């Protein structure tokens, strides 16, 4: 009864952390546990060192998106790919993926890059429907690339090494990128688009223009895999570096704008971490109440092989992704399916990549996919036309999720 009520309140739009806290409070209350257990569990936020990476990377991403860095990024990719047929479409995909890796797919990409790419695609002669679909779906591409926020969160919740997860995400992320790029080229094979001539001079100029941003992935990845920096340290260096470059050196962000950007980014961080904090408590309650054992029994009687387990998992994740945002889904569901997956011999790293890839589709799945609404709002299109425009991209991403799920080596060959 209480759970039905909570579900109803969730659907009516109560903040998710309140729903999770409410269910944990109710559960512990029924077991006669002192409810101080909730604040104690939330305090575990301050006992999880790796979480430091979350505010720092998020802040860096927001600073980048408020500066002119997106324009410079598009210029570089345009100089490199712009001469190819379908080149600008590839530019859009590559730039969005790079950017999302840093901003954590919170819709910032569509807002920051969409404003540049959408008109650029139109003036290059791509049809409107394609552009809308491309920009909407590219907004969550890059989720599997380091240092994306959802990967870090999965690492925290699953207690798996985050640097390993970063490596594991690279090839599956590339697969999505390549499939979408291939389709974009094929779809536009008859479209007369304005191709820019390839010029070393423009490549050089674009690179010079972006000379201060290009070292960023090198700082992050080089620092981590060179063994110089821990993940959270790389986040600190990134935040400081971006702050110095965009605020002090380039002066594209005024000091007076800084508090607003800090607020915007930390509202997202606060929202995510509070959900994480209360879910520490609800997970503990569920373990106390024997939920994992019940799930075990439930699946064991119906699912008899790894293959059927993966299939069931995929269906479940796609439904989940259509109603729940990626962050809440990770903190709520991962602790419950980890032991199940282990039981069927699914590697926890592979599970993470499947999870994130499937949840990425959730951004684009009607009725509540976040990117659909952001695009509809941002480009002033009806939500139905956004649904229709995004559908082919959604199908391609679905195919790539299938490949990622049933081909574990794609995720694991670099790490195991």
């Amino acid at each position, binding site marked *: 009864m209480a759970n039905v009520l909570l579900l109803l309140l969730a659907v009516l739009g109560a903040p998710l952390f309140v729903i999770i806290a409410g269910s944990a*409070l109710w559960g512990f209350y029924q077991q006669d546990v002192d409810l101080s257990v909730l604040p104690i569990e939330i305090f575990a936020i301050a006992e999880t060192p790796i979480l430091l990476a979350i505010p720092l990377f998020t802040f860096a991403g927001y600073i980048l998106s408020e500066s002119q860095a997106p324009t410079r990024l598009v210029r570089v990719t345009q100089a490199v790919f712009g001469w190819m047929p379908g080149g600008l479409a590839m530019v859009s995909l590559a730039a969005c993926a790079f950017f999302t890796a840093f901003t954590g797919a919170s819709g910032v990409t569509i807002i920051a890059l969409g404003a540049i790419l959408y008109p650029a695609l139109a003036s290059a002669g791509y049809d409107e429907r394609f552009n809308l679909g491309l920009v909407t779906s590219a907004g969550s591409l890059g989720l599997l690339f380091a240092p994306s926020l959802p990967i870090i969160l999965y690492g925290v919740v699953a207690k798996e090494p985050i640097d390993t997860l970063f490596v594991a995400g690279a090839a599956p992320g590339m697969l999505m990128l390549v499939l979408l790029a291939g389709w974009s080229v094929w779809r536009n094979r008859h479209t007369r688009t304005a191709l820019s001539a390839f010029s070393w001079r423009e490549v050089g100029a674009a690179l010079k223009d972006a000379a201060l941003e290009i070292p960023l992935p090198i700082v992050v990845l080089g620092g981590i895999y060179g063994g110089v920096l821990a993940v959270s340290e790389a986040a600190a260096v990134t935040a400081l570096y971006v702050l110095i470059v965009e605020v002090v050196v380039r002066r594209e962000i005024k000091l007076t704008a800084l508090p607003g950007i800090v607020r915007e980014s930390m509202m997202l961080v606060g929202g995510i971490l509070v959900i994480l904090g209360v879910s520490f408590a609800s997970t503990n309650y569920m373990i106390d109440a024997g939920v994992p054992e019940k799930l075990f029994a439930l699946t064991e009687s119906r699912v008899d092989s790894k293959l059927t387990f993966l299939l069931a998992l995929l269906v479940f994740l796609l439904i989940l992704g259509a109603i729940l945002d990626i962050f809440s889904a990770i903190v709520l569901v991962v602790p419950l399916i980890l032991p199940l997956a282990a039981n069927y011999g699914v590697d926890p790293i592979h599970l993470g990549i499947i999870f994130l890839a499937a949840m990425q589709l959730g951004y684009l799945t009607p009725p509540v996919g976040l990117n659909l609404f952001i695009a509809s709002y941002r480009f002033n299109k009806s939500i139905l036309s956004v649904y229709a425009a995004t559908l082919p991209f959604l199908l391609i991403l679905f195919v790539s999720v299938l490949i990622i799920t049933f081909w574990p080596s794609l995720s694991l060959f670099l790490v195991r």
Partner: protein
Amino acid sequence: MSDVRWWQRLDRIGRGLENALLLLSLVAMIGLAVAQIVARNVGLGGFAFSDELLRLLVLWVAMLGAVAASRDDHHIRIDLVSRFLPYRLRKGVRVIVDLFTAGVCAVLAWYGLSFVASTREFEDLAFGALPLWWFQAILPVGFGLIAYRYLLWTCQHGYESWRGEVDMKTGSPEGG
């Protein structure tokens, strides 16, 4: 600016305070984390307190960010039904949801208080020097503020539901 109402001024002050605290915590976080890397690489080792302080700062930023998100009504939620509801019903539903939110957060604040009180009783220390409960106090304070914020939202949405939709051009600018 004499027609700026007192609650709008209060809102501005509160918002400024949240922003200032967030900025301060974040800058401290970046500075401390980078200083630690530098110190380690020139062979000074780390500072004993900085790891713990950084972790506590994450908690502070999280709670402050959540408080800020409550002022802007920016929490992560499933928005499945409300966009299909007519204006007054939508606002009416929000009244129930906001009241529930305020209630749960008040309970969290209350038990947060008893958590802090017990830490205080045991005289736990942060960095072996300062009372740990000073830093834990952000939990009851933060949830208390969120509860207060959603009580205000309850009133606001209740009023909007009762009044009905106002034409943006001619209607009263109440609530900014």
